[in-house]
């Protein structure tokens, strides 16, 4: 079930775009961590540093009208889907102009205008929501697909079984992507996961599954392109497992003391951005060009962070808005 990404003819422009995007994601999250340090973000921040290849390799194979749902660790996916970094950072800081007017924050980051139907604070909950989106898409005969990205910890919750079974029973246009970073918070998922793992579970539910090196954006790009095409063609759901590693703690507050330093150091040597840079350098791209991506990304995200810091709080009425139409708390909240 493992993808062999070589030999391949590289589409350099596309790879350069991936490199830019991965740096934008990393720079965004470094700014978010900064905001956390400066106590401008009080809620939990779950960085995807080290997992950017999945956002780039998977999500760029989705069209803007395709649907994506994500997890608590969803900044990268959301940026890759095309959300505005400024609005996202304002959301993280709980400011007016945030994607959700500061009402959801990092764990509920969403931008419906680009088909990003939300990160979710409940592990595995987005699997059902994606199956439902795919169900609606098929029912309406629309030409688009729905993609759900979730972690390796999510495969032990009921929705993994119920949602995947549903998607296959109804042969829905759904793409399921498991970000297997080896951990669920402080727990090594292998210690709490029985059997051969995510791919075998998906196949036992009749869904073709593929395991990919989640730090190899080229392999992910190819695997997702093929899987998404099959789903788009009406072939029913597909499943991809992307093996990766969470380079930071579970949250900004987690020192991740439960992992040996060597393990983390080794993982850094497998940094997906560095790997892509190496590939591009080998292909003759100038180091200057690559360094430029990093510089531009940092400049962009510093500005994005400054903008968010300067942004006002949402007006207090917002606390009572968008609850419900019938029984609107703005009419009677008690």
């Amino acid at each position, binding site marked *: 079930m493992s993808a062999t990404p070589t030999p391949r003819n590289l589409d350099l422009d596309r790879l350069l775009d991936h490199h830019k995007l991965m740096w934008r994601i990393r720079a965004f999250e470094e700014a978010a961590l900064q905001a956390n340090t400066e106590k401008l973000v009080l809620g939990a921040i779950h960085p995807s540093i080290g997992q950017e290849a999945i956002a780039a390799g998977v999500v760029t194979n989705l069209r803007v009208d395709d649907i994506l749902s994500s997890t608590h660790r969803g900044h990268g996916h959301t940026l890759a889907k095309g959300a505005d970094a400024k609005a996202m950072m304002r959301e993280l800081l709980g400011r007016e102009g945030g994607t959700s007017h500061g009402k959801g924050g990092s764990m509920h980051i969403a931008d419906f205008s680009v088909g990003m139907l939300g990160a979710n604070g409940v592990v595995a909950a987005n699997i059902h929501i994606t199956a439902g989106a795919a169900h609606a898409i098929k029912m309406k005969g629309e030409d688009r697909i729905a993609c759900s990205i979730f972690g390796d910890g999510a495969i032990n919750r009921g929705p993994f079984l119920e949602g995947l079974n549903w998607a296959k029973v109804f042969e829905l246009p759904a793409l399921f992507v498991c970000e297997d970073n080896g951990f669920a918070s402080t727990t090594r998922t292998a210690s709490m996961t029985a059997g051969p793992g995510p791919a075998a579970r998906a196949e036992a539910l009749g869904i073709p599954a593929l395991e990919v090196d989640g730090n190899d954006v080229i392999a992910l790009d190819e695997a997702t392109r093929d899987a998404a095409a099959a789903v788009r063609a009406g072939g029913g759901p597909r499943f991809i497992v992307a093996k990766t590693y969470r380079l930071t703690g579970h949250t900004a507050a987690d020192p991740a003391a439960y992992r040996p330093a060597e393990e983390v150091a080794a993982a850094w040597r497998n940094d997906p951005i560095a790997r892509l840079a190496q590939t591009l350098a080998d292909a003759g791209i100038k180091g200057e060009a690559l360094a430029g991506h990093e510089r531009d990304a940092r400049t962009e995200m510093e500005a994005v962070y400054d903008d968010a810091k300067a942004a006002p709080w949402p007006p207090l009425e917002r606390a009572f808005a968008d609850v419900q139409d*019938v029984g609107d708390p703005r009419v009677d909240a008690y």
Partner: protein
Amino acid sequence: MVTMTYAEAGRTALAEEMQRDPTVWALGEDLGRGGVFGQYAGLPEQFGPVRISDAPISEAAIMGVAVGAAITGTRPVVEMRFADFALCAVDELVNQAAKARYMFGGQSKVPIVVREPMGIWRSSAAQHSQSLESWYTHIPGLVVICPSSPVDNYGLMKSAIRCDDPVVYMEHKNLWALEGEVDNNDPLPIGRARIVRKGDDMTVVSWSATVHEAVTAAETLSADGVSVELLDLRTLWPWDKDRVFESVRKTGRLIVAHESVQAGGFGAEIAATVSEALFGALKAPVKRLGAPRVPIAYAPPLEDTVRVTAAGIAEAARAMVTE
């Protein structure tokens, strides 16, 4: 003006709404054969298996899929079979359906109707008899409807389906066969109580199957010269404070009667609200009549001991007027 059963009324309303709006569909176990209570009989033939969809035994998926399908432009009617089984899908209803619109800053609404047949129904025991309507009144984002008659089940089902909010729609299993006249084709307003009968000595507020006990009680009482104004709340959230206040201002006395457990029941919300708002106008303390805090037993006599009955309501009413 036609006569139909409570089940037929819900079914007819659903069928009409499905004809009116192609994005309305229903999903649940065994719907392809008309549903376990026949509340979908004929609809699979009329609308086909896509719009009247079977489902695996996966309440969490049924609810969660409905949420995803609702934010993707359809209007799912979710069949939970028994309100008790909805407890397998609480995250999907409370953390997802009820909160999505708010968490996402209004980027989407979640127009789903969650049908949860409720209540005591012939020796179904503790896991098939619960009435947990008060739970949903406590959850921001949810609308809660508990119809007691065919005409209300027809009109409120229509409104629930047209409502853009997630609606917990609780039909009472003991009322499926109840016949009544359905004299309008329009949706009924959500949040409006029905004045079942006018009276002056006291107000009785009830909903769902217990309304029928209250009707019997009111008849007995009027024979004894106690004139009861009976309100069928119909909608628990939002609830019709205006009509309840208006009535209690007139009568000065209030009994709230419901089948569900009294402790933490919605009767407490009504009693607390009225006791505060109409403090001066009350001639007697507001009285709640609900079930004792015990699970529902299987043996009929034990099941009967926890019921709120016409006799119990009448007795409480007499005690109240002679206080």
